[in-house]
């Protein structure tokens, strides 16, 4: 690549081989060997160069430029390589080309700057959330008062996609989780001779908590992510702006039908999950504890309080609103890049699952206080 020779006070650099982009790694290394200081004149000989391209010549030129700045006189034997003419021309057209780095802050300043930036961002986010949720609620009330603005076909489509299409997975998961609960319950309670209470455990557990919670978590994973991704891609394609420019409120056509669709679908899914959970419990009780199906049903009727079923079902629309709002809100936030889309879709799912469980905890406290 590069050989250096000392000839009475001057250094001769001989370039050999092909200086092309494929060999940049070697070129970079050999250029580091160019003596920056300690010589007064530097002769560069390019006659043995077989191939040269722009990138390599640019690196050579920058290295020689640094030599010149440190006081060395650089001259070429047999003239400059041909690419230098173009590079010189380029530099005259755009005189920048010096890589500068931003002034670095000291670490206490950096910490303060980072903290401050985050605090401001957090404040803006909080305001954004509040603004969006306010708009959605306003738009919902508006749509309900003026049925013309309610997009019924759209609501039905989302109820179908979030509800009917989720039926198999919700049914399966409810069934198997109920089987697990019944199995653990039976194996523990049997030791106390209280095996029959497994039925109470299943009834109260599935109807009050598990049915609705499992359904909400599955729907958050399925539909929450779908909402965020659908609306996010529409944002990236300027479709949301197109809607606004036509004079259609994007919240009215994109957000409200999705949220309403979920409000319809989630309670219905919850009923299916409850039924499948009870079926799973009955099956396992029959198999493990020899409780026949009529016996199981009689015991369930004893265990049921009038409110048990409703205590579960009443939570479903609340969860639906949370999932729908978070999913659509995150979708609306997407700007600019595909990474944003991925980040916000993930955020939508994580936040809606968190909010569902958090809301469930609040419901539990309220129900206990109300003796519901």
């Amino acid at each position, binding site marked *: 690549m590069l050989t250096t020779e000392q000839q009475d006070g001057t250094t001769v650099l001989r370039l050999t081989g092909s200086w092309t*982009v494929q060999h940049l790694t070697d070129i*970079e290394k050999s250029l580091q060997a160019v003596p920056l200081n300690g010589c007064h004149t530097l002769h560069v000989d390019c006659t043995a160069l077989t191939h040269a391209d722009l990138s390599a010549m640019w690196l050579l030129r920058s290295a020689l430029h640094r030599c010149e700045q440190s006081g060395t006189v650089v001259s070429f034997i047999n003239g400059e390589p041909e690419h230098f003419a173009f590079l010189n021309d380029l530099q005259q057209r*755009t005189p920048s080309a010096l890589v500068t780095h931003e002034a670095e802050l000291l670490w206490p300043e950096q910490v303060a700057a980072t903290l401050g930036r985050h605090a401001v961002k957090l404040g803006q986010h909080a305001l954004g959330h509040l603004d969006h949720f306010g708009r959605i609620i306003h738009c919902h009330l508006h749509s309900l008062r003026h049925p013309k603005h309610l997009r019924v076909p759209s609501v039905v489509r989302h109820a179908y996609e979030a509800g009917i299409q989720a039926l198999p997975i919700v049914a399966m998961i409810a069934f198997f989780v109920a089987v697990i609960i019944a199995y653990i319950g039976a194996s523990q309670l049997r030791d106390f001779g209280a095996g029959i209470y497994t039925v109470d455990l299943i009834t109260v557990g599935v109807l009050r908590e598990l049915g609705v919670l499992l359904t909400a978590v599955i729907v958050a994973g399925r539909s929450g992510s779908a909402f965020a991704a659908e609306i996010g891609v529409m944002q990236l394609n300027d479709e949301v702006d197109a809607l606004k420019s036509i004079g259609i409120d994007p919240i009215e056509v994109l957000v409200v039908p999705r949220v309403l669709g979920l409000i319809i679908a989630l309670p219905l899914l919850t009923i299916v999950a409850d039924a499948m959970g009870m079926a799973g419990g009955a099956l396992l009780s029959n198999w493990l504890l020899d409780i026949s199906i009529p016996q199981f049903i009689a015991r369930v009727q004893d265990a049921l309080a009038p409110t048990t079923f409703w205590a579960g079902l009443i939570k479903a629309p609340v969860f639906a609103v949370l999932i729908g709002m978070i999913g659509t809100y995150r979708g609306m936030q997407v700007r600019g890049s595909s990474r944003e889309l991925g980040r916000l879709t993930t955020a939508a799912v994580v936040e809606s699952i968190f909010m569902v469980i958090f809301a469930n905890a609040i419901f539990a406290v309220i129900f206990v206080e109300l003796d519901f």
Partner: protein
Amino acid sequence: MQPAQPVVSVRNIVTRFGEQLIHDDVSFDIAAGEVLGIVGSSGSGKSVLLRTILGLQKPSAGQVLIEGMDITSMSERQLMGVKHRYGVTFQHGALFSSLTVAENIQLPLREYLSLSQATLDELTALRLDMVGLPLSAASKFPSQLSGGMIKRAALARALALDPQLLFLDEPTSGLDPISAAEFDQLVRYLQTNLRLTVVMITHDLDSLLTTCDRVAVLVDRKVKVDTLAGIMNNPHPWIHEYFHGPRARGMTQMLAAGVQHGT
């Protein structure tokens, strides 16, 4: 002197999507150091032809030779070797939206070579200079750039590995006439100084007139290649309408007055 080997040679390409025949026996050569413009009506298969030449799509029949190597019968591995010999810009830039402009330009370099960050930065500065972008654009994300800057950044990424062959898909679409003219000048400037071979798909008559040496017209599933003057006198109704329609009249008058190649 023996005629030099064509840089790209398209031989008897047939492309079929199901029942639909897109290209029927398309053949032409692209010589080293020329600028070839590809025109054709929307849906005539310009982009499909480009994708075929790039090796992104296999033709139903026929061959594509890049520097004498048949890319249609190559293994994936060999094709990778050919792919870093050319640079491509796509219609909408196709910059990676999660990377900054500098990272976009450095991506091909990082992929093929192991270089220090300082060297990478230096090479990035050169590319930005070449395409006329300010250094401040380096740390920006594609979503923060204007349409013209995106086209320039895409060109900078296409030039990252010092290719001798450059493919541009509608490089001036969506630009205002001034930016489009500047971009044409830039392409011509780089092409003459670096002796590049350029293939560009374009709808822009100005670009054809100021930048291209020869024009390939895709019409009736066939291709007609000729010099600009030759193609303008082609009697085919679509080609005649293209170059002599209401939008082209001013341009042809300019050509008649001898204002070719903007010099």
